[in-house]
């Protein structure tokens, strides 16, 4: 059990004295402090002769009480006096949190800030895109192309994700074939499963799922890497040396994503078709190679074009969101997490919006 500090009031000749006892330290003062705060009757004297050890919190409590009641402190040991002196000199009434305005003002303020911020954000993204284009031409003109960085990023974005994207696509192929077969069976059109798997994966799902996976894997990594580099002033250091962070960090990442996305999307589509073929061999009774041969017959070439045109655009969006958010980090570690999340959410959202736009566009073009 802990020993608590205690207070006792004694009245003698019209003077009331508060007699304190027990250890006046942070671990034992909790209850005494509440008691003293509740005491409103006038007190003329505080007797410290009965206290045990004392620390700054004890000294503060005594001094605060004394100055509130204009009371005299007696019986203090030299140590207690020294501590009381120290805390007295350190008194302050400053705010401990930044001032906050009333809720009505805050609501409007926040909404206003959000609107303005949205506008500024739009401008910044566009200028970021412009800066990327400029630095791309700059590096082409000056032949300052960072091949090593590009290859490294291509490896990280592309090669390193082959396993996970392959597995994901294979499973998606299986699920489409299986679910499609169940529904089409009702019309006796089981053989159309091939059309479903082939066209859907090449046109839509291969690229879309890959973009989502790349946003989660690489877009977030871009944001976190660049954000951390901003916090540790690495990016500032680069600028002072004369290395453009755009050329050295952003461009390789953007190009890597733009180059690798079509390759990954194509790979994902193929693996998904193999997944569908595997399932149809095992569960639907359509032989594996028959399935593949049928894919060749029923899938028009433009389905591949649709996918391959979308892929680099998605790659650009994902990398742009990641790098842009990373470069926006400032202040503290929490920002890195925040911007990383934003990068992924924005990337996936934009990819899906654009996918819808593309769907309408290609249908109008007659590539239905």
């Amino acid at each position, binding site marked *: 059990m802990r020993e608590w500090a205690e207070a006792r009031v004694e009245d003698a000749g019209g003077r009331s004295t508060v007699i304190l006892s027990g250890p006046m330290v942070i671990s034992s003062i909790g209850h005494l402090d509440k008691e003293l705060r509740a005491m409103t009757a006038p007190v003329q004297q505080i007797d410290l002769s009965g206290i045990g*050890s004392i*620390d700054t919190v004890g000294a503060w409590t005594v001094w605060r009480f004394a100055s509130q009641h204009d009371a005299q402190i007696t019986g203090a040991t030299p140590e207690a006096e020294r501590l009381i002196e120290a805390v007295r000199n350190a008194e*302050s009434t400053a705010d401990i949190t930044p001032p906050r305005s009333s809720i009505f003002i805050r609501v409007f303020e926040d909404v206003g800030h959000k609107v303005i911020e949205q506008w500024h954000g739009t401008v910044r993204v566009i200028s970021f895109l412009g800066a990327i284009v400029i630095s791309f031409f700059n590096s082409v003109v000056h032949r300052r192309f960072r091949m090593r960085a590009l290859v490294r990023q291509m490896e990280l974005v592309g090669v390193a994700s082959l396993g996970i994207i392959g597995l994901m696509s294979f499973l998606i192929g299986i699920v489409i074939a299986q679910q499609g077969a169940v529904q089409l069976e009702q019309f006796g059109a089981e053989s159309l499963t091939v059309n479903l798997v082939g066209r859907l994966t090449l046109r839509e799902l291969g690229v879309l799922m890959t973009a989502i996976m790349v946003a989660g894997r690489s877009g977030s990594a871009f944001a976190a890497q660049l954000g951390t580099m901003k916090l540790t002033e690495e990016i500032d250091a680069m600028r002072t040396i004369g290395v453009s962070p755009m050329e050295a960090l952003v461009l390789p990442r953007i190009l890597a994503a733009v180059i690798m996305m079509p390759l990954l999307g194509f790979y994902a589509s193929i693996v998904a078709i193999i997944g569908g073929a595997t399932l149809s061999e095992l569960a639907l009774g359509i032989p594996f190679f028959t399935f593949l041969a049928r894919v060749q017959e029923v899938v028009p070439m433009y389905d591949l074009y649709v996918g391959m045109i979308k892929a680099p655009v998605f790659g650009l969006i994902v990398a742009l969101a990641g790098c842009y958010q990373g470069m926006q980090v400032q202040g503290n570690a929490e920002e890195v997490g925040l911007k990383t999340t934003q990068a992924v959410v924005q990337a996936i959202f934009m990819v899906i919006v654009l996918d819808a736009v593309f769907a309408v566009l290609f249908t109008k073009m007659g590539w239905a």
Partner: protein
Amino acid sequence: MNERADGAIFAEDTDDEIGGHYDGQYPIVIEGLKNAFGDQVIHDNLSLKVRRGEILGVVGGSGTGKSVLMRSIIGLQRPLEGTIEVFGKDIVGAPPEEETGVRSRWGVLFQGGALFSTLTVAENVQVPIKQFYPELTPELKDEIARFKVTMTGLAPEAASKYPSELSGGMKKRAGLARALALDPELLFLDEPTAGLDPIGAANFDNLTRELADTLGLTVFLITHDLDTLYTICDRVAVLADKKVTAVGTIPELLESDHPWIQEYFNGPRSRAAMQSALNARGVDSDTGLGA
């Protein structure tokens, strides 16, 4: 003993060592310490005793494991061999729950301040208070935060600032305020004056000495700063050859014939620091007159 209904809740589940007081002579006793990262041995058979109430400066070349030593004492680095006793309790083998009793009695200032970046300075100071003493009233917690901030020489307004709004020196002071939040008996400072300008460093040295005297602290101070050594340290421990090669006052160390110690204390920078420290006390360094 208090028989309060609300007090009992805290008293029941709290280690009675929280907020205890140490009266022994050596708050830190290290014996036969061995630390290694992979094949690289940092400390081998290192022993050190820190006296109560002293400011012990710890020096050593880069990579001699000054910070690792501090991390071992505060339980962040598990040593391979050896015992470390803080306030007479074994830290190495102690289960984490028992450690908390000790944790409330030391304060640590990390090199970069290590302030929690999402909290204001005052809220940073309140973190350890809330952790160990939830029974304190919010008013008292706020008041404690305020006077701790002011005591460490920060402007009162700094209490409501976030760490990212502070300069390097202010961050150190804020870190010190947090380290002192629980009125610890033992204070660990990892290169407190590194990165400060000479005036800021001298102020911080004075502050450390003043607080140590006022609050009766034992200070374990890692430093590269020769001025700090000469002006505020009672004793200096030298880390070299994987152990504490020598401990003593600077005059005692000067008599050692260890090459590193000789080079360290007889270098031009050291001589200048010593001269200025002696001048400040009005002593002539050649004759020793006026001491």
